[in-house]
């Protein structure tokens, strides 16, 4: 089912991943059949991805996330919105992020 993602959506880490900051990198391990598979399914985010991820706490709407991030990075909201939406779409598609109902 395609979930509609808008600026009012609230996102958070999916139940099916374990995310942990390790040696400065944010490492995300998807759970496959209840087992964390770090052998071929590991993800890591770069600084920007990490900054977006850390704001997705299940409370802020994407709109608020964009606002906060464009302040942090002194970037235009329009550009940030594109990046955040792209990020969230991709992560939801991969089952790493979940959209809160």
């Amino acid at each position, binding site marked *: 089912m395609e979930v509609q993602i808008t600026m009012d959506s609230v996102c958070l880490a999916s139940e099916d991943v*374990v995310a942990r900051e390790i*040696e400065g990198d944010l*490492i995300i391990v998807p759970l496959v059949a209840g*087992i964390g598979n770090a052998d071929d399914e*590991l993800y*890591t985010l770069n600084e920007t991805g990490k900054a977006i991820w850390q704001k997705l706490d299940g409370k802020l709407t994407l709109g608020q996330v964009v606002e906060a991030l464009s302040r942090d990075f002194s970037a235009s909201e329009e550009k940030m919105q594109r990046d955040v939406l792209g990020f969230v779409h991709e992560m939801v598609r991969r089952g790493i992020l979940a959209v809160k109902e």
Partner: protein
Amino acid sequence: MGPEQLVEESFSWVIRGGELRLSNLGQLELLRGMHERGVPLRIMVRGSSMHPFIRDRDVLTIAPLDSRDPRAGEVVAFTHPVTGRLVIHRVIKETDRGWLLRGDNCSKSDGEVTKEQIIGRVTRIERGGREVGLGLGPERKLIALLNRGPGLLFIKQIWLLPRRAAGFALRCLQAFPLYRLLGRYLARSLTVAPAEDNDLEIIKRRFHMSGPFFKQSPGLKVCNWVAKQGGKVIGFVQLVSRPQAYRHWAGDWLFSLQVWPLYRGLGAGEKLTNRVIEKAQKQGAAELLLLVNENNIRAIRLYQKLGFTRIVLPALEPILAAEKNRTGRRRVVMQKKLR
């Protein structure tokens, strides 16, 4: 870096697993993270302290301990009491305060380890994509019992004796000039060619891994060659060309040179290396670099013969020293100037 650039880069945020190498402490941290959630972790491990039951690059599934205490014979992941590093060894004995642990391939035990230091138990071993049964089944108790004393190491020595003797005899023979001369004459059909897909399958199986350089990463260029004798793959080499973004690993590197033991002394290593040199020259490289185990005298001799000299790259020294701590093998850099 300006803020706009930072944002621009946000689309390089996903790195598929396998390409990311976690350090030992990184693995430990990840394992803790998984077990806080109460889920097992499937991960590749390095080292040979559990050989032959667990081997370098085996993929292990490590489950949280839960309520059941470890028992003699089980293989557990724990924080080493002295070094604080993640270690995976076997419980050889239950003691009053905890457990006595020892690697199947270690001459000494790790000492007594408490429950707080044990992170999880190994529930599955995979090698080359297949589950390996031996080492975790009922035989585990016998292994633990033997390993309380020198029994296991002793059996291993005896077991390996005929093979070692044969290997020694073969190496002596291969070093013998007449053998080399005759061999080269008889092995005239030995060819070196770019590796085809089916050759690479053979290589992957032999190296027991999906391998660091079988996956193409951005900007990285890899060329693979195989040596063949009578249609059979008997050797392998790679040229890995990395762009400047790889910093001290940038440049042209000869990698993974290997000739199957039975076919050494026939000139295959030399042919393979020469092919890499030619290709690097054609690409306009100023130098060709390689890493070799400092004890691998035969390889070093071959490289020297082909014009490589040992050099020190200061930026790599700490990495290579750390590798020695981790794996026990010290690699050194050799370089051949191409112009």
